[in-house]
């Protein structure tokens, strides 16, 4: 899928009322998802991989082929006689993501950089009538990493590589990844090397823009004269008024946000 075809991602705004015997199939990046309705139950089958570069997106409803039985994960949900109305929506991860640029880069003294980065999402299946999340499936196998100064002080996070583009168009488009704008201002007298960044996605909102792209709340951070990063802020992305809110933050932003996301950059 290309960025120009992102309009197709608006399919997520629609609801789904499968009848008995109907199958819904979605390919969202590396994730293959099948939802099959049968008498008084819904079965959710999924399969994913580690391929973070996969940019596939297509869906079939009703799916005419056979639902593969040998997929890794299968869950069944019992329902009463009434057929539920479902909605499938992306959501951000439950832990912060540590992102590592594929090439190292520096922010020069006195400069302000706007970095475009992306983090993998999960898919949530909602029961619209009851306004309840039935299931949540990560789009790809997430690898955990430790982010902290020592094994005793830090936090377990998910890990992903990023391109850290400075122009949005240079960021390879992956439909299953949400775009975050990070502003870094270097007020010190030395260049700041960006080796790793911790993106606190658990505190961010998720939106879908007019083009169909998924974007999160933006982040900004400023360094002091000694190069210490301070003043982390979370704020709505550009044109927030025109965006559709997809997900509220998983966790309330703590009062001392910077302390809770210390070492944003290493």
């Amino acid at each position, binding site marked *: 899928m290309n960025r120009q075809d992102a309009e197709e991602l608006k399919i997520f705004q629609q609801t789904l009322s499968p009848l008995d015997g109907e199958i819904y199939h979605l390919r969202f990046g590396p994730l293959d998802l099948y939802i099959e309705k049968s008498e008084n139950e819904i079965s959710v089958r999924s399969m994913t991989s580690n391929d973070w570069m996969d940019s596939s997106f297509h869906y079939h409803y009703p799916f005419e082929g056979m639902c593969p039985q040998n997929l890794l994960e299968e869950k069944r949900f019992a329902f009463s006689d009434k057929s539920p109305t479902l909605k499938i929506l992306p959501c951000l991860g439950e832990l912060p993501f*540590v992102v590592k640029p594929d090439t190292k880069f520096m922010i020069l003294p006195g400069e302000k950089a706007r970095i475009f980065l992306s983090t993998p999402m999960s898919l949530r299946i909602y029961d619209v009538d009851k306004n309840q999340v039935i299931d949540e499936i990560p789009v790809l*196998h997430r*690898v*955990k*990493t*430790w*982010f902290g100064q020592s*094994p*005793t002080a*830090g*936090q*377990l996070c998910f*890990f992903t590589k990023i391109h850290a583009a400075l122009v949005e168009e240079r960021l390879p488009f992956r439909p299953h990844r949400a775009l975050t704008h990070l502003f870094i201002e270097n007020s010190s007298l030395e260049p700041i090397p960006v080796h790793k960044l911790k993106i606190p996605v658990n505190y961010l909102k998720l939106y879908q823009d007019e083009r169909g792209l998924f974007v999160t709340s933006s982040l900004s951070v400023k360094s002091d004269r000694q190069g210490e990063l301070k003043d982390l802020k979370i704020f709505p992305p550009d044109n927030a008024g025109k965006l559709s809110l997809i997900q509220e933050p998983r966790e309330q932003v703590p009062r001392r946000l910077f302390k809770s996301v210390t070492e944003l950059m290493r």
Partner: protein
Amino acid sequence: MEDIYIALNEIRQDIPWRSLFLGVSVLFVGQVILRFFDWILQLFLEQLKEQQKVYNFRKFTIYLYNIILFIFFLKIIKVDMKVILGAAGFMTLAIGFAARTPISNLISGMFLVSERPFVVGDVIEVNDYRGEVISLNLMSLTMRTLDNLMVRIPNEMVIGVAVRNISYFPIRRLSLTYMISNRESLTRLEEIFMETATRNELALDEPEPYFSVTEFRENSIEVNFLVWAPADDFFKFQSEFPKEIHRGVKQAGLEHVRSEIEINSSHRYKKNNDNS
């Protein structure tokens, strides 16, 4: 027979029935009030995260309330408090001897609750027991061992020995020791370790895995590999990772590599044979 009847009648007349009835009523109403306030208190306190502290606070408050209620009861039935206070010195001595262990447990429990070396849900090792903490109250620690047995350890014992809290930090390190023959490639073995750690989903890339040579021997080299994993998945990792290393070593055709487990068991085997 008549004498007994007269004696019982005198006792009956001496008993302050009115005061006794009033005292018992006060005890009863006091207990009802206690239950009501305990219920209200629970509604407020169940929102708090630190349930162990809440539990201990509740217990302490209930004990204190009951003591006050009992003193009040004694006053109502007109028991001479001077006599009780007079006997207090002797009672203290007697109770001191009899309740030495419970009091020691109680004080140890207070230290454990305030120091918080572990909380309910942590996996710890105390003496020879390893398991999950089910409860920590003022008298004892209750654990569920990994083979699903309940163990109660008096606080007095816990405070006096080393406690290993296995789930205190979110990540843990696995240390693997191997012996490799001088004829085999040490570099290849290091590559296998590193590749396996990269492939394994639970092995953390940070803190970085670390490979080192710990000893050169006549015909072999002892190496050590350190790799980190999330504490929640550590038992799974500890079981899976050596198997993956073993597969990697076999696939690479390194025949003279032995793990610490193999070395220890072969020593045991040799020792047993020598003894027999």
